[in-house]
């Protein structure tokens, strides 16, 4: 595996590789921190989680059939989807009224929600707590919403354009820039700033 391929490993892949190392001592952690500095925080958290996890006892826990059924349904949904549908547009089913209602529930302007829907914001800059709230309101998993937000910005089909020039994909901006430019009230702005990671 080349260094270039290394940089493409996701946080999850790096943590999984770390987790199956025969030893989790300082030397191993140091090695991973040097190789994957972009995942340093996650690696430290993981090393400590591995340490304390061994002291937990899960024998007395009572499981629920509902939870297993839910996971089974999730499996069936994903396994049944064609590969190109794995990244779905969670906004696709919203009609204009539902779209406005979603903006209201999130206490943001329609303009900011449009920017999110059109992937005009760099996904990595969106606070994860905001993504979680958005996912909850959309009835999707935070991961599915993040997958969508991370996919390349594109012209969203199904919207009307009236223009003399051909519409193009706009350049992405940061979440901070987006909230400053989305006609939010000072209170809304403060609330969104407080969500920053």
């Amino acid at each position, binding site marked *: 595996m080349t260094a270039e391929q290394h940089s493409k490993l996701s946080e*999850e892949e790096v943590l999984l590789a770390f987790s199956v190392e025969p030893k989790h001592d300082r030397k191993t952690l140091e090695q991973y921190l040097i*190789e994957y500095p972009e995942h340093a925080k*996650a690696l430290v958290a993981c090393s400590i*989680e591995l*340490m*304390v996890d061994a002291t937990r006892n*899960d*024998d007395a826990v009572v499981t629920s059939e509902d939870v297993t059924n*839910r996971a089974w349904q999730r499996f069936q949904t994903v396994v049944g989807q064609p590969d190109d549908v794995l990244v779905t547009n969670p906004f696709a089913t919203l009609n204009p009224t539902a779209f406005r209602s979603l903006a209201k529930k999130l206490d943001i302007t329609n303009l900011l929600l449009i920017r999110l829907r059109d992937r005009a914001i760099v996904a990595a800059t969106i606070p994860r707590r905001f993504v979680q709230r958005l996912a909850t309101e959309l009835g999707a998993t935070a991961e599915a919403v993040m997958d969508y937000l991370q996919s390349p910005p594109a012209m969203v089909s199904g919207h009307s354009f009236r223009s003399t020039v051909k519409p193009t994909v706009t350049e992405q901006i940061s979440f901070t820039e987006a909230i400053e430019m989305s006609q939010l009230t000072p209170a809304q702005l403060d609330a969104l700033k407080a969500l920053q990671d």
Partner: protein
Amino acid sequence: MPKPLKRKKKDGTTYERPPEIEAWLKKLETVEVAERLRQFATLSRKSIGYVPSEALVYFLRRAWADGMQGDFEKIFRILMKRIEQSLCSAISDSRMAGARGIREEIMDRFAERIAKDCKGRTGLLDFYEIRFDKAFAAFRTSALRQIGPTVVDTVPLGSDEDDGLEISAEVEAAASDFLGGDPEKLDDPAFRLELTAAIDCLPDDQKQVIGLLLQGFQIDSKDKNIMTIARILQCDERTVRNRRDRACKALKAILQEENAQ
């Protein structure tokens, strides 16, 4: 013979299962399917005949590859019950706000990983055939970083606003007494186990410092080539010391309380 793993390490070699897991797989391959499923159903790790989850993942993937839908679903459900058990312990209702929703989201994500593996997309399940509990702890860590609460509810230890300021001599003394007073005590496996369990009760920032200290990292160094806690956490050396001192004070209280019970 169990099928080998496909995932490659960074040095180009293929990952291998530990010998004890290979032995389990060979043994289970000789057992009738119905009996195997019966053995898988044991949920308690303490029970005789408890089959390691690494083996469940192997036979889950085999069932899918062989088109044995019924067996696949049965193993999937057993595996998910084990995961739920583990999550209820790691993300208990008392430890984290919204714990139930977080557990469900993590289970959903794991179900998605299995689905993607069935479609031959990631091959990430190989890790779970090597060291299931460790791999799942890593998966959970990554998921929690995305969806977990920013602050974990733990023992109240005061505000962190004074991170950069010196703290009282009393706390400093408690810390040195705790971590530096008796080095032999830290080497005692029973004490270390008790201490590690207590660390789980600390807020994340303090947990990081104590966790790294226990792994042998030093707080700070003039030598820029040494990886120190201050450099890893990208914060001032005084902040690290203050977090350590607060953590030590809290740990001492937790351990004293536990020993008094």
